[in-house]
């Protein structure tokens, strides 16, 4: 009961704060203080409700549906804490929690800058709606309320259902707490835009709004990065980005926020782009709401790998009304005031910084548009085709690539432009070195193997952006490092783009069968499957020994049936600079530094097969024979004549039954020619070869390619008696090398560092009395 009461109190007081602040703005100044107190009570209630939920989780109160659904007794404390936001109700709770806390900061910030009633009335309205969702979908529901009639009142289950094993991971513990700061804080630039419209102060609002916009972009960006890293190292996607709706829905508001930062800069300097900035700030928050709707309403239902839970009609309608209301307030007001918003003539010179910053903003909006259109494709196709279907992920790559190329070029160019106008001669001079350097760099890569035109162009513009910004960053670092934010961020973006090109376009992947205890060479490493063991009650580790030179390490690849997900989970093992085992294995760091600077080795388990007593590698070296061509091995000459199959076997093969196929092979040995017919028997689709004796050797028919008229045979000493050997375990893995993926992580870290520096600079500008 306590949790629910707290939510109701928080809701009522937040509602009162909204109304009080609004009336305060309309002239009833006496209400402002009451609204302020009301907001404090509301925030306190939210904090207490969150603390109460955490307490319920930590003390295993399984009579609560939420606690029962996502946690269990065997979880460690950090994982137990992370179950707080493992489900929908809890993540809305977390969002509300951040909204409440950030509101307190916003309140005193706005009070200092003299627009508290307006900004807080809008902001508090966001909180009202979040609390309304928590009332409809409460994390404090008892199990007998969730399933009335099925569970009797007062019943406490002895244990909970547990946490999804995919979320049982350090990165997933910290990912939601960071990304939800981003979601929550996106309401602040929105509130600032509405405040500007309400107060009719169109020019000055960007200055105090800017640090918050950067803050949102920073936290959302950090959340995205951590999510990407989680996908790379836990999900086994093989990459850090899968254009999944959940990822896209955080990316899109981020792109808009980043675009806004660029044009806010222009407005602060020249007063131009007022309407654009108002619109963008409103749009960023509405896209947060729209994304929430996409991923939380079940509307994407059947079209994604993720299963989206249908939260029920109430939440669905609430999410829709959230979008409608905040769109109506934002764009309605903007539309109503459009005529009175001052138009400052924008410097239209192509070679001005203003113009290029605006272009950057536009490019980011177009990218965001493409991504959101693709993510919404199930809705769009449902409307036009009647049946929802999602676009292929290739859509995103196809559409963003040309924009990425232009964006990288702009990142390079805009940084060297001056405000108002740049002299072409000066531009040429500054661009000489970066142009030369990036041209040389790209030429080298073209020689090395970059063959596609668009990729070569992307490399060219990205490296151009890198060299331009590196040079500027270096100059600023020697002067006043406080101003390094922008150029540092762009150095990071350029590195990130180069890392993306290398690791996603030029990675190599191979499916390898590893028969137990037999080494197989892959990409310069010797891999041996050495056996498996249980790690906990569910998880099984399949150990692969990885050797290179003197070094030898065991990689435990996890693959197991998860009771929770009712499916097979596969976790990769990655040899990368970010491998955690460096703490437990002192020899590992040196090995990683030696081998993994350029490439990650990514090992992903696929399946464990019991080969039916046959292992191609155990019978000798594999030899490929083309039909009618002779091949000499030592004293022997082999020639594959034809396949041999009886009509009876043919019929069995067609019927999916066990069958046998033979290969007629002509063997010349010591002047004698003979024909032999080794066979493969297929039993339950497992190949079981039957070798034949030839001279002192044993010839085994291992594999065939009917269309290619090719067979593979092995030719050995015949030491192994196949029919009696034990079934061999074969671990099938996918091994890939990801070139320069470290650039992706490194680039992201630099970008985030740049954001932090810029934010500090913009905060200090707000504090300073403005120069007139």
């Amino acid at each position, binding site marked *: 009961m306590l949790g629910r009461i707290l939510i109701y109190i928080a809701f009522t007081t937040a509602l009162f704060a909204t109304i009080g602040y609004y009336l305060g703005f309309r002239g009833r100044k006496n209400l402002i203080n009451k609204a302020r107190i009301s907001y404090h009570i509301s925030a306190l209630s939210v904090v207490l409700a969150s603390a109460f939920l955490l307490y319920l989780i930590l003390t295993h109160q399984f009579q609560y549906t939420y606690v029962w659904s996502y946690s269990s007794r065997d979880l460690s404390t950090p994982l137990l804490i992370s179950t707080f936001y493992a489900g929908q109700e809890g993540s809305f709770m977390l969002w509300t929690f951040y909204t409440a806390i950030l509101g307190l900061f916003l309140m005193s910030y706005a009070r200092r800058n003299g627009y508290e009633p307006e900004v807080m009335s809008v902001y508090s309205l966001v909180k009202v709606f979040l609390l309304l969702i928590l009332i409809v979908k409460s994390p404090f529901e008892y199990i007998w309320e969730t399933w009335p009639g099925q569970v009797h009142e007062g*019943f406490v289950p002895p244990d909970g259902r547990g946490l999804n094993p995919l979320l049982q991971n350090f990165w997933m513990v910290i990912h939601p707490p960071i990304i939800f700061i981003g979601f929550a804080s996106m309401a602040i630039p929105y509130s600032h835009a509405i405040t500007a419209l309400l107060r009719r102060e169109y020019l000055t609002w960007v200055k105090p709004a800017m640090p918050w916009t950067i803050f949102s972009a920073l936290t959302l960006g950090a959340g995205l990065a951590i999510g990407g890293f989680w996908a790379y190292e836990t999900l086994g996607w093989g990459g850090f980005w899968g254009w999944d709706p959940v990822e896209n829905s955080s990316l899109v508001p981020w792109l808009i926020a980043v675009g806004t930062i660029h044009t806010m800069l222009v407005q602060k300097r020249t007063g131009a782009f007022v309407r654009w900035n108002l619109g963008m700030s409103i749009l960023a928050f509405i896209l947060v709401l729209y994304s929430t709707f996409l991923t939380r309403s079940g509307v994407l239902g059947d079209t994604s790998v993720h299963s989206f839970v249908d939260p029920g009609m109430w939440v669905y309608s609430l999410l829709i009304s959230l979008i409608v209301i905040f769109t109506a307030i934002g764009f309605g007001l903007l539309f109503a005031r459009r005529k009175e918003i001052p138009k400052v003539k924008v410097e239209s010179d192509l070679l001005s910084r203003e113009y290029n910053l605006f272009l950057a903003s536009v490019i980011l909006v177009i990218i965001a548009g493409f991504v959101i259109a693709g993510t919404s494709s199930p809705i769009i196709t449902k409307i036009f085709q009647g049946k929802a279907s*999602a676009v292929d992920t290739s859509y995103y790559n196809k559409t963003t690539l040309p924009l990425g190329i232009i964006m990288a070029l702009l990142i390079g160019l805009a940084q060297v432009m001056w405000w108002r106008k740049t002299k072409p001669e000066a531009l040429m001079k500054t661009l000489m070195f970066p142009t030369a350097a990036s041209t040389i760099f790209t030429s080298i890569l073209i020689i090395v193997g970059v063959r596609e035109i668009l990729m070569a162009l992307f490399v060219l513009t990205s490296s151009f952006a890198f060299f331009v910004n590196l040079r500027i960053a270096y100059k600023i670092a020697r002067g006043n490092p406080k101003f390094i934010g922008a150029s540092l961020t762009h150095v990071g973006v350029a590195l990130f783009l180069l890392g993306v090109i290398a690791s996603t376009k030029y990675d190599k992947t191979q499916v390898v069968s590893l028969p137990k205890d037999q080494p197989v060479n892959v990409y310069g490493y010797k891999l041996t499957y050495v056996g498996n063991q249980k790690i906990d009650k569910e998880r099984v580790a399949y150990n692969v020994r990885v050797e290179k030179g003197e070094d030898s390490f065991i990689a435990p690849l996890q693959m197991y049936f998860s009771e929770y997900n009712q499916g097979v989970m596969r976790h990769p093992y990655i040899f990368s600079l970010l491998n955690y085992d460096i703490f437990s294995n002192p020899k590992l760091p040196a090995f990683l530094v030696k081998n993994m600077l350029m490439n990650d080795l990514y090992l992903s388990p696929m399946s464990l097969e019991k080969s039916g007593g046959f292992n191609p590698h155990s019978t000798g070296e594999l030899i490929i024979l083309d039909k009618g061509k002779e091949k000499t091995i030592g004293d022997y000459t082999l020639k594959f004549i034809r396949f041999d199959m009886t009509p009876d076997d043919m019929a069995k093969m067609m019927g*999916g039954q066990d069958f046998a196929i033979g290969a007629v092979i002509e063997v010349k040995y010591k002047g004698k020619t003979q024909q032999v017919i080794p066979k493969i028997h297929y039993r339950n689709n497992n190949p079981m070869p039957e070798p034949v004796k030839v001279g002192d050797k044993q010839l085994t028919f291992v594999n065939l390619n009917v269309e290619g008229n090719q067979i593979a045979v092995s030719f050995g000493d015949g030491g192994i008696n196949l029919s009696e050997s034990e079934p061999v375990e074969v671990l099938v893995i996918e091994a890939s090398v990801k070139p320069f993926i470290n650039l992706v992580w490194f680039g992201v870290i630099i970008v985030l560092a740049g954001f932090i520096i810029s934010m500090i600079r913009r905060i200090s500008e707000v504090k300073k009395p403005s120069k007139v």
Partner: protein
Amino acid sequence: MKLKIVVGSILIAGFIIFGAYSFMESNVKYVTIEEAKKTTKKVQIVGEWVKEKESYYDARTNQFVFYLKDDNGDIVKVIHHGAKPNNFEIASHVVVKGHYVNGIFESQEILTKCPSKYQSADALKQYQN
């Protein structure tokens, strides 16, 4: 200034057309097996796994083979390039994305849709009896 607006509008229109075109191209339509046989485009088929027919994973070629029955009752052999997907056994229906080539549906991606056992009281009942 006028010229710039014209150039800008053309560019934006170009991007929109380009986006819409890519969207249509990449939109993988849901079809029946019968329709899949008639097209060379990438399509997706919803259906059920035919458990009576053969189904196996071939480790050497990294192919998972099974038979799929669509809503019309047609059956097609599916060769999926990859491991057997998660949740395959308990999936209420399966979605395959790929091309129909020479009597076989070559699948690049499989989605499995599971009966939602979550949020159900069944799991709780075990404690109550």
